[in-house]
């Protein structure tokens, strides 16, 4: 993993791209910008209908057929407890790899790919119990905008966090 990243970096150097730092895919949720490591992103596709999974939390929108693979899809707005929004033409699903699993996140729109050095990433701010920043690795700036870098493993962890483990007696 680290080797691969390094070779990418050195290539970037040679080709005159901004050196130093990792590449992130940034996307929008409303006015806010978020980023995920680009190496984790498998593909980006427009929103299509999903099949709802019974007895799962509402932010698990359902599953999708991705070339024969059944891929669970999470609505990031719902996961973060943000206001819901109608899906439109800009709505996309970012397919990411999480601990060997393939999963998708629904976001408002994809923004850009950015390079940022580790030293330019600030630790996530603390809001106490007001806002849960457990999913955020750190923050950084991209031009005028603030980008929150996501710990995608934690956002989409299947085991370990209670959120995905649905109580059996819900019905």
């Amino acid at each position: 993993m680290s080797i691969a990243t390094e070779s990418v970096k050195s290539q970037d150097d040679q080709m005159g791209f901004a050196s130093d730092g990792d590449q992130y895919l940034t996307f929008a949720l409303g006015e806010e910008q978020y980023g995920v490591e680009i190496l984790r992103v498998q593909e980006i596709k427009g929103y299509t209908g999903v099949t709802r999974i019974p007895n799962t939390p509402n932010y698990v929108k359902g599953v999708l057929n991705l070339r024969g693979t059944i891929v669970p899809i999470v609505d990031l707005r719902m996961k973060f407890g943000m206001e819901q929004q109608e899906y439109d033409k800009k709505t996309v699903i970012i397919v990411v790899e999480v601990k060997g699993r393939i999963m998708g996140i629904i976001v408002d729109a994809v923004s850009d790919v950015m390079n940022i050095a580790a030293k330019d990433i600030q630790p996530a701010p603390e809001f106490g119990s007001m806002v849960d920043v457990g999913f955020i690795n750190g923050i950084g700036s991209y031009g005028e905008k603030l980008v929150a870098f996501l710990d995608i493993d934690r956002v989409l962890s299947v085991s370990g966090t209670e959120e995905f483990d649905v109580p059996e007696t819900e019905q």
Partner: protein
Amino acid sequence: MDFDKSQFFDVFYEETAEHLVAMEGLLLNLDVLSPDSEELNAIFRAVHSIKGGAGTFGFDKLTKVAHAFETVLDKVRKSELALKSEMVDIFLEGGDVLKEILEAYKEEGEIDMTSSIDIIERLKVVSGDVLKTEESPKKTKTKPTEKTKKVSEVVDEEEKDLGFGFFDDDPPIEDSDPESHSEVEAEKDPGFGFFDDEESVSGSSAEKAEETISTSGVAKTPIKKIRPEKAAKAQAEATSIRIGVEKVDQLFNQVGEIVITQAMLAQTASHLDPEIFEKLENGLVQLERNTRDLQESVMAIRMVPIRMVFSRFPRLVRDMKKAFKKELELVMIGEETEIDKGFIEKLSDPLTHLLRNSFDHGIESPEDRKAAGKDPMGTIILEASHQGGNVVIEVRDNGAGLNRERILAKAAEQGMSIPENISDAEVWNLIFAAGFSTAKKVSDISGRGVGMDVVKKNVQSMGGMVEIESEEGVGSRFIIRLPLTLAIIEGMVVKVGKEVYILPITSIVESMRPKENEIKTIMERGELVNMRGEYLPIVRLAELFGTESDVTDPTKGVLSVIESDGGRVAVLVDELLGQQQVVIKSMETNFKKVNGIAGATILGDGHVAFIIDVRAIRSFAGHEEQMFVG
């Protein structure tokens, strides 16, 4: 270097296991009178390959046994040593020992060398000093009794009085299979002792002929017939390659994807004007045909002949016959029937159990059979065939059949509730209950009551069903129906509101639209439907899955009665959309186990539909019932 080798171990284990299976099959088919040199060579080669492989990878203990084995086989194939049926026994045991050692290496467990040392000694004895074996007390004792037996099995009690001379040219003896004779278990019946001379004159006894090393024409003919087939088979095997299952599965997925894309294209093109797009349409029709062929070809890769399971049973029967005083013939039909590779391992246990069951409970003792006017030699037929979209495997015997009264008495004894006017089929189903056994005495083989329930469970886990047919005094039939492959099930597509689910056909007993007077409630909540006198709890799928349905009144929807583990519930759905084969995809690959869902599948339009976990739904219903009681 060691690390490098270890990656080949699995291949070695697999290949060795295959060699052992092949060797056992060859040994069992071997004609002791006139062993086919090609077969002897094949056995030799199998052991030689095992020895070679074991040597390369440093499995010394395996090498040692294989070496002793090989020495004897080499002498036999060079005709330096005459083959004897005792030798076949020792070879078979040798195969077992090799198998044990192999397993031990595989599991990295302790290897018990006592059995190896024993078998090496015995192999040395047969190879080195032939006279010594013949003089050994064990041999001299068994020989006459075996001979005796041979006569006793073809002679009926009544025929005995007719005079013995006519046996000399009695056609049944001539026709009988020499192999089965030589395998027959000894039976002590002093009155038959003097047949020995008679027998040797007739020359039809395998044992006798073996001593004189004469080759009777009767024995030779069937072998000649088989030979060209075998040669062809050997050639087919030689051109095969070994590939990982995951590669095949990947191919399967990709082809599935093409099928869906093709369906999508066809749908899109159906809106176009056929006159302008004639060529496109022709191309799409061609594409459809090709993709379907491709899908079938890919599925065929996973298919292997059921012979891989059946091959172990002649040995089992041989051993059982040795251990018990019963006479029977095992007939195997349809060994070339192809089944999914994934079934091979899972089928072994249930079939072994059914076979033992037929042997132990079904086939009567020779005396009983004679008394009932039957051929003292029982028959168990193991048959595989393709019927529609299923693989059907039957174990049938011409034994006593199931005993209705005994099963009912046993069921009552175990406190099972038995409905009145219970049909035969329902009585037979009782034996699938856990802990059920009607065996008068517990034997080594079966009758411990831990069997039929496991058989049923195993078969169900493969998405199959077991049926029983039986007639007292005539015999019984156990029929296993399996889907063609593990990855595909026959499903009933059902609609609930906007959602579509798949119910496995094998678990649906029937579907019906209830009348109003058939719906009852308990405490205004628990709904029940009266199915011809039996009240079944109703499970509303929409409620269970927290979705909306168009139908709230059961009399406007459809109730599908599903069965699992012997219990039934009625599932309420909006409507049945039709029956189709669906490819099972795991939910756990990218997500996790979801309650009430056995897996997912992709429908023709590319959408995902869930396959309902029937067992879980049953337990949901169970919970509700319990809640009502509490």
